[in-house]
């Protein structure tokens, strides 16, 4: 008899652990904080610098310059793609388009897609891509620029893989991640941009992050 109660108790415990209590928590700040020591008035002190997106400067599909300042009053979703990508990018574009449609009228959020094939994906090619997709800047910006700057920013700031690799489909290796970035340039979420349910979660988290700025 006792055993039965214990079993039922365990079940409830498990149920409790699985239930989405987490939804009321704030989104985490991702990335490793950097600890630097510096001298203030002759005394060594330690300072924690949170992980932030580094400075960048790129050109979008309308030949406008895009920098961190372009997003100072916006949260944004970033990803890495290239036009002639045979594998995961078509699905990523389709999923990002869902985010685009949902937040079309909301000026507090922007979308930023970086090409990892800047040699082929020129400003004109990106403009054509945006036209075929039927989207416009500044809501959804497609940016190109210095190849090494794009790869470095991807790996060190956004913490995703973005590189040339002759063995990968289309000649580039990259992750299909969507990154949610807040107004303080911090990474607040990573989602698989090829999976609809992950992008559903992203859209919920966007709402949550936007609400946190209203308080």
């Amino acid at each position, binding site marked *: 008899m006792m055993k039965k109660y214990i079993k039922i108790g365990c079940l409830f415990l498990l149920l409790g652990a699985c239930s989405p209590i987490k939804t009321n928590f704030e989104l985490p700040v991702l990335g490793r904080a950097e600890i630097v020591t510096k001298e203030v008035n002759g005394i060594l002190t330690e300072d924690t610098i949170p992980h932030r997106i580094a400075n960048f400067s790129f050109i979008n599909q309308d030949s406008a310059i895009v920098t961190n300042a372009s997003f100072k009053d916006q949260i944004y979703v970033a990803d890495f793609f290239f036009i*002639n990508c045979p594998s995961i990018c*078509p699905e990523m*574009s389709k999923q990002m*388009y869902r985010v685009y449609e949902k937040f079309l009228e909301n000026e507090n959020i922007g979308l930023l897609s970086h090409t990892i094939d800047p040699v082929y994906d*020129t400003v*004109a090619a990106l*403009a054509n891509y945006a036209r075929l997709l039927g989207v416009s800047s500044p809501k959804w910006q497609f940016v190109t620029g210095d190849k090494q700057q794009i790869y470095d920013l991807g790996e060190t700031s956004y913490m995703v893989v973005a590189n040339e690799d002759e063995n990968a489909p289309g000649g580039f290796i990259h992750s299909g991640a969507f990154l949610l970035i807040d107004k303080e340039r911090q990474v607040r979420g990573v989602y698989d941009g090829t999976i609809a349910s992950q992008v559903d979660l992203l859209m919920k988290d966007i709402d949550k992050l936007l609400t946190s700025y209203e308080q």
Partner: protein
Amino acid sequence: MSSNNLFLFLFLFLILSCHSYQKPSESHVPENLDEASKMKYTQYLIQGKILYNTNCTHCHQNSGKGFRELYPALIGSAALMDDMGPAACLIKYGTKVSRKASNQNIAMPAQAELSNLEIAEILTYIGNSWGNQTGFISVKKVATSLVDCATH
């Protein structure tokens, strides 16, 4: 053959034959074919659908409707006319580089690893699904089309 074996044989035969006659619901098989042709047609449709799902859906979608203007719809596509010659070339060799002009469609990637049989199965599937009715596409037709891709 013992009666047990006979039963097993009949049982397997029925399962297998039922299975191979189950064409995809979005596909069309002409009525006026003999049983053998119908069976081959249906097998191409089934195999073609599997191949389409792994090699094409992420761009052209399950529905064949494509996505925005990036990835064209395959329903009523002009490339499916002319015994699918242009489509066979497009699948095997992709969009020609000369067409990568900036005000055009983006390029379709080549899938050179697909065999003529696989291309025939895919073409039979997309040519006879979602309302398309181009008829059976044989391996021979594909082989002939691929000879002169330069003209497409």
